[in-house]
């Protein structure tokens, strides 16, 4: 049940991301944006879907037929897999059973995410290469190089977080952030301890999802459409869809790791004071938590789109310099600082 729910919601959000992207672009550029299909243009994604189904599509004669289809499928498949371990909410108590609002709770959740993100590059590489188009090949190579470069810094920033949490389970990490901070329960978020790590992770998240300012694999001005130059209709749709699903997953991971996941300030107060029945109170907090979690995800998605219309694209040498010569040393420094801080924590506490 919950699995289907998670799946459906992810896809739904991804669909509406396309709408949101246009609306936000329009807002930032002082335009109206899509407004014809349905009220406020809300049926626009539907219209897009219909277009994708009915549009003629062809596979270039020189392309590798099978791999040409396999590319977008792989991209979509890896994107779908990654949302499995994200804890969308705490447990719901129904008839005395604790049900976790999460696809799967594992001991290795973070490693799983890391592994699946690493796989994301196959879809792009294979698709770009199978197209037999010079632009596609260049796009694929750029994407692969960029993804692997930023994966390292991403991993290192996760390490620093892991040293504090001591657990790879995303759920554990979330629950650990439910404590008190500045007198508010549920605000003990990692962002306050790992600001540098968060910035590194955020940058890498942009790069891993190939979003502006890191959209060199598909930048129109240099490479037409990059790895999906030759794609059209449904297969292009799969690529775009995979990109939006990746954005959602990455936003969710960021909320879990750094912004307390489904914890929200004052949750203990809600639990204690609103409803008298403990089961009801628990469920209420959980549902509120889910809402808050999606709120955080939407905030991040908005941020992604905001940045897209704000920052110009990097040049490739700048991109590599940022990844290897700035982010990786910074991330290593962050690991060392975190280690030292953990060891000196009692002394640090005594000082203040």
């Amino acid at each position, binding site marked *: 049940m919950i699995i289907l729910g998670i799946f459906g919601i992810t896809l739904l959000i991804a669909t509406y991301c396309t709408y949101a992207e246009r609306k936000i672009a329009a807002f930032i550029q002082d335009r109206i944006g899509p407004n014809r299909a349905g009220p406020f243009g809300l049926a626009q994604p539907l219209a897009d879907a219909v277009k994708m189904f009915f549009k003629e599509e062809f596979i270039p004669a020189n392309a*590798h037929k099978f*791999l040409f289809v396999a590319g977008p499928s792989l991209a979509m498949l890896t994107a779908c897999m990654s949302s499995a371990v994200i804890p969308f909410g705490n447990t719901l108590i129904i008839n005395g059973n604790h049900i976790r609002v999460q696809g799967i709770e594992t001991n290795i959740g973070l490693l799983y995410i*890391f*592994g699946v993100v690493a*796989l994301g590059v196959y879809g792009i590489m294979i698709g770009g290469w199978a197209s037999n188009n010079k632009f596609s090949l260049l796009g694929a190579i750029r994407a692969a190089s960029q993804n692997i470069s930023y994966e390292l810094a991403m991993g290192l920033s996760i390490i620093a977080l892991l040293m504090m949490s001591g657990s790879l389970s995303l759920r554990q990490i979330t629950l650990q952030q439910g404590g008190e901070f500045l007198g508010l329960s549920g605000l003990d978020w990692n962002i306050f301890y790992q600001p540098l790590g968060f910035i590194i992770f955020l940058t890498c998240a942009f790069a891993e999802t190939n979003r502006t300012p890191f959209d060199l694999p598909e930048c129109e001005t240099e490479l037409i459409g990059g790895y999906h130059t030759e794609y059209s209709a449904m297969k292009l749709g799969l690529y775009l869809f995979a990109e939006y699903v990746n954005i959602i997953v990455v936003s969710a991971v960021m909320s879990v790791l750094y912004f307390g996941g489904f914890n929200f300030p004052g949750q203990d107060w809600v639990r204690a004071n609103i409803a008298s029945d403990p089961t009801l109170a628990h469920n209420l907090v959980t549902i509120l938590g889910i809402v808050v979690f999606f709120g955080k995800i939407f905030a991040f998605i908005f941020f992604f789109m905001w940045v897209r219309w704000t920052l110009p694209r990097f040049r490739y040498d700048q991109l590599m310099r940022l990844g290897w010569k700035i982010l990786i040393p910074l991330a290593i420094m962050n690991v060392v600082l975190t280690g030292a801080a953990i060891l000196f924590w009692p002394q640090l506490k005594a000082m203040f």
Partner: protein
Amino acid sequence: MIQNVFYFLCFLTLISGSMVVFSRNPVYSVLFLILTFFSISGHYILLNAQFLAAVNIIVYAGAIMVLFLFVIMFLNLNKENETHKSNLSKFAAVIAGGILLVIMVAALKDVDAGTYKAEGFDSQIGMVQNLGMVLFKNYLLPFELASVLFLVAMAGAVMLGKKETGERHF
């Protein structure tokens, strides 16, 4: 239920493993090898070696195979341009493999590898905490020396892989 999963994974492992060997197109070989890694990761999960399952995906599927794909793209090996061995030597290779299999199985079929011991069984040994403990306490020295290995590999690979000055650019 789990037995069926096991048999399915065995089947998948062996089939995709054979396809790595018999595929004409190197790109297919790479994809089948990735599939093999996934099915082996599935086995690890069945055996509750979760950490290794994840590492297997990260290191093999996420890094090593990307490099293989990179090289195949770089060298433009999509088409079948392998000169074929004579049928005789192919035949010999297959026969040699078959004989090896028969010998090994014949020798190992009498082995009773034993089974689990219920008392004192720790199903959590494959968890990252336990492995970390063992790795950083008992296997500290190999761990540190592995870094020397990485340094050698990196210095060597970069030296061999880079373009020399004056070399043709392509």
